[in-house]
């Protein structure tokens, strides 16, 4: 049977299109406008071509922020992914304890970002915070407000606390979907625990794991609220990640042109990485069929 195209159906997409136009496309175009023009106010724009981009690509400050960002994202991925898998493997499989674990682990995910920041900011303060004061009492030299290493440590521990659950829950779901027969066959084959993990569990949860890594990459690469609340980017510029630097540049210094060029490049990096992930996932699915 020949199917007739009914182009009126496009009208149904229109509301979403309008919504997206106002929420994303038009603001983005404004940014593009600032990125290629210079302005001194009064809504007067002067064409600047790729000037801002050239400036930003050469900017030491941006290089430093990007370096810190990559380091931060790398560290938290290296910690959260293996830790999440480890937790998922050792969680109770069913019954009361499994439910309790799931609820407890979901809790950090439900807390608003700035509240997480505030919790850790207070928790780690050396004058009144439980952890900070405790460390001081134990004689450990810990102060996240003036030691760069301590500041990093605090942010990493906070992020691990906040987000490892996400990785663990996704992996747990992946593990639960493996039929018992696989474990039984592995026992019959006298498979070692490591081989079971390597050849059964890891391949079966690689799909969800890839999504977990992607989510954690995007989220951590755009991290703003928590470090802003805890360290404010300090001490010095030690924890000034890309978002924090961007806000400083755009709103603090009101350098709208460079900031706009900066955000476009920032956006492109994330888009590029997401595209790579997407391609890998799609090719994996095709390979499985």
């Amino acid at each position, binding site marked *: 049977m020949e199917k007739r195209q009914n182009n009126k159906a496009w009208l149904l997409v229109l509301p979403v299109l309008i919504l997206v136009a106002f929420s994303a496309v038009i603001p983005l175009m404004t940014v593009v406008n600032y990125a290629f023009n210079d302005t001194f106010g009064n809504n007067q724009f002067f064409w600047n071509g790729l000037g801002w981009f050239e400036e930003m690509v050469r900017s030491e400050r941006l290089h430093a922020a990007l370096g810190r960002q990559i380091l931060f994202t790398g560290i938290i991925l290296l910690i959260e992914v293996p830790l999440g898998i480890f937790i998922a493997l050792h969680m109770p499989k069913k019954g009361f304890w499994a439910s309790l674990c799931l609820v407890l682990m979901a809790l950090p995910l439900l807390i608003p970002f700035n509240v997480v920041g505030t919790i850790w900011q207070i928790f780690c303060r050396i004058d009144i915070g439980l952890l900070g004061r405790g460390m001081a009492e134990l004689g450990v030299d810990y102060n996240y407000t003036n030691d760069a290493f301590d500041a990093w440590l605090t942010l990493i521990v906070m992020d691990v606390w906040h987000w490892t659950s996400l990785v663990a829950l996704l992996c747990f779901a992946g593990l639960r979907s493996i*039929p018992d027969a696989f474990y039984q066959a592995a026992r019959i084959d*006298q*498979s070692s625990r490591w081989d079971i993990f390597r*050849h059964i569990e890891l391949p079966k949860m690689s799909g969800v794991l890839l999504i977990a890594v992607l989510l954690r990459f995007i989220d951590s690469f755009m991290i703003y609220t928590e470090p802003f609340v805890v360290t404010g980017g300090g001490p010095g510029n030690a924890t000034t990640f890309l978002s924090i630097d961007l806000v400083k540049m755009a709103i603090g210094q009101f350098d709208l042109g460079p900031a706009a060029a900066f955000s476009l490049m920032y956006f492109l990096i994330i888009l590029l990485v997401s595209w790579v992930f997407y391609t890998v996932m799609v090719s994996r699915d095709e390979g499985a069929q």
Partner: protein
Amino acid sequence: MAKITLSNLAHRYAPLGSQASSYALTEINHVWQDGGAYALLGPSGCGKTTLLNIISGLIKPSQGRVLFDDNDVTGVPTEQRDIAQVFQFPVVYDTMTVRENLAFPLKNRGMAKPDIQARVALIAEMIGLEELLDSKARRLSPDAKQKISLGRGMVRESVNAILFDEPLTVIDPHLKWELRTQLKALHREFGHTMIYVTHDQTEAMTFADKVVMLHEGRIVQIGTPEDLFEQPEHTFVGHFIGSPGMNLLDASIHGDLAMLGERAVPLASAYGTVAGRTQIGIRPEHIRVMADGGLPAEIRAVENVGHRRIVRAHLDGHSLNIVLPPGEPLGTGTLHLQFPPDKINVYADEWRVAGSIR
């Protein structure tokens, strides 16, 4: 290879005394002879997978013993029992090639590399996967995957028995036949003890020398496919085997006559007093249609399935299935039926009663 003895075996999933403490398996005593091809046949939920998992050691029975030859293995874990099991859904190691899959159980047992290679090559030839040896297992079709899991079982020379848990469920119908034939050939050639769980009577009948019929956690009959067809020991077997199943009619037994209400049906031998609910059973294939006389049955419907016709008829209010070869149209009238005496089985309270030969 070994003889497998189940002694006084029973299993329940919930502990005794709790609400669902009914037995999944009750009191099974059975010997699986070395080198036999057995089918474990029964409907879903009759306990056949439980029984299989007890043999393989994945489940520990609540009661009774499992012996391989004369060794009690009831407490021995699966990995030390040297059995192979093929599951309902093909289990392959996705990350490995076919070759690595087949070599895996041998590698884990610390076999020398050249020996592994020789053995894998042999098994691959047997199951017809030589050409796929170096492709990734996850890219293969379900039937090839199922062959890999079979091969992983057979690759160990010491294997005591190969257990199949409905292995053809996910296989395309036209390949089922081929795989079953191949299994049968492998069995003839290598003589492993094979136990094949299925709810499909055709699979069971074509695969096995001996079919073990399971019903509500009990073995109701063990026999050749012919036994199960001709002399079902239990009305359930009569009903389950055959398509359509055996006709069961309430009748009272008087010596060598069965009374269907007022009508007398002669039997092949004499029965004494038979207590309980008495029934006679006759296969639809065995009923004969005569020109005249006999038992008058009213035709209700005729289903033509090509090579044969299934007639749904009524005999004094009992419904009756008759299988006839294709031929003249039957119309809608009355059929005159004859039940050949030697094809009639007599049941008391569901179990077959043997008559004394005259």
